[in-house]
C-alpha cells in the first residue's frame, strides 16, 4: 500500500516537474479572435439564454422547426452581424435582445404552438438583433475572421444545447422541467428588459 502511494507521489512529482508553461492567455491574432468570438455569446447571459430558448422552443415545436431552425438561424444572425459590422443602426437593439429572452422564454414556458412560419419570423427577427449586437461589439484588436467563426460556432452549439434540452419533453417530468426553464428564462428576460429600458431612458 505504502509503495503504491509512493509510486503515485513519484508520478505526480514527475508530472509537475515536466509540465510546460500553459500560455493560457495568448490573445493575439487568430487565437485571440477565436477565443473572443467563442466566449462572446457565452459571457452575455441575455444572449446565452435566448439562444438556448430558441433551441428548446424548436424542439418543443418538433419537425420541421427542430431541424430548420439550426440551419437557418446562424445565417439570419450572421446577416444581423454584418449589419452591426457595417454600423447600420437598428432601433433599440439592447431592448430587442432582452425582449427576445422574455418572449422566447414565455413561449417555452407555456409550450406555445404557432405555425412554423410564424415561429421562423419571430426567431429570425430576434436573430438579426442578436447578430447585430455581436457585430457591433467586435473587438478591434482580434482577428475579425476568427472572431466571426468563433461566435457562429458558439451560437450554433448553444442552439444545439437548447435542442438537446428540448428533447426532454418526450417525458412528462422532462416537459415540466423544460417549462420551468422557460419561466426562468422569461424572468431573466424581464430583468434585462428593465435594465435596458432604464438605460435607454
Amino acid at each position, binding site marked *: 500500500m505504502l509503495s*503504491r502511494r509512493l*509510486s*503515485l507521489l513519484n*508520478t505526480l512529482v*514527475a*508530472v509537475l516537474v*515536466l*509540465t*510546460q508553461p500553459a500560455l493560457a492567455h495568448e490573445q493575439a491574432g*487568430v487565437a485571440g479572435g477565436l477565443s473572443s468570438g467563442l466566449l462572446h455569446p457565452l459571457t452575455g447571459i441575455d444572449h446565452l439564454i435566448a439562444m438556448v430558448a430558441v433551441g428548446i422552443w424548436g424542439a418543443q415545436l418538433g419537425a420541421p422547426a427542430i*431541424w430548420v431552425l*439550426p*440551419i*437557418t*438561424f*446562424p*445565417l439570419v*444572425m*450572421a*446577416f444581423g*452581424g*454584418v449589419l452591426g*459590422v*457595417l*454600423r447600420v443602426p437598428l432601433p433599440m437593439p439592447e431592448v430587442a435582445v432582452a425582449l427576445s429572452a422574455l418572449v422566447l422564454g414565455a413561449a417555452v414556458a407555456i409550450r406555445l404552438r404557432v405555425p412554423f412560419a410564424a415561429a421562423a419570423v419571430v426567431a429570425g427577427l430576434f436573430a438579426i438583433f442578436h447578430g447585430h449586437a455581436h*457585430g457591433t461589439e*467586435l473587438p478591434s484588436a482580434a*482577428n*475579425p*475572421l*476568427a472572431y*466571426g*467563426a468563433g*461566435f*457562429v*460556432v458558439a451560437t*450554433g452549439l448553444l442552439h444545439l444545447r437548447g435542442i438537446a434540452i428540448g428533447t426532454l419533453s418526450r417525458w412528462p417530468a422532462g416537459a415540466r422541467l423544460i417549462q420551468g426553464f422557460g419561466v426562468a428564462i422569461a424572468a431573466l428576460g424581464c430583468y434585462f428588459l428593465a435594465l435596458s429600458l432604464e438605460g435607454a431612458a
Partner: protein
Amino acid sequence: MRHTLGRACVGAAALIGSAPAADAHIVASRLGDFYAGALHPLTDLQDLILWIALGVLAGSLGAPKGRWLVLVFPLGLLAGLVLGLTSGGVSAGPVADAGMVVVLGLLLAANVRIPTAPLCATALGLALMRGAANSGDVGSETNRLLFAAGLASAGYAAITLAMAVTLAFRATDADPSIAWRGIAIRAFGSWIAAIGLMMGGFVLAP
C-alpha cells in the same frame, strides 16, 4: 498487474503531454520549403474554411462525384500558384473569398445536388484563387518546386480527408435512424455560410 499497467499509462501520458517540440531541424534540410508550402495554407483560416467546406460538400454529394476533386483540386492549386508567381502575386481578393465561402455554405445548407461538372468547375476556381493567394509568400530564396509540391500535397490531403470523413459520417440515407447526420451536415453548411457573410461584412466594413 493492473496497477503497474495503470502507472505505466499515467507515466506515458505525462511524458507525452509534457514533451516539448522536437526541433528536428527538418527546415534546415533541403525539404524545408516543402513543409513551408504545406503549412502555409494550413495556418491560414481562409484556406482552412474554404478547403474544409469544399471537401464536406464533395463528400455530401457522394464518392462518385467527389473523387474527381482528389485530382482536380491539387492540380488547380498548382495552376493557381504558377499563375500567381508569373503574374506577380495576383489575388482574387477577400471579397471573392468571402463570396466563395457563402456559396459553398449555401450549397451545403440547401443540400443542392449539383452535377459533377459544376462541382469540378467550382473546385478548380477555388483552387486557382487559393493557389494564387498562396503565391504571395513565396520569396526569392524559396525553392518553388518544393513549395508547390508541399502546397499540392496539403490540398490533396485536406480535400481527401474532409471528403472521407463526410462520407463515413453520412453513411447511407436509407437508414432513418441516422437521418440526423444529413441535417447536421446541412447545419454545418449554414455555419460556413454565416462565417462567409461575416467575412464579407468585415471586408466591407468602414
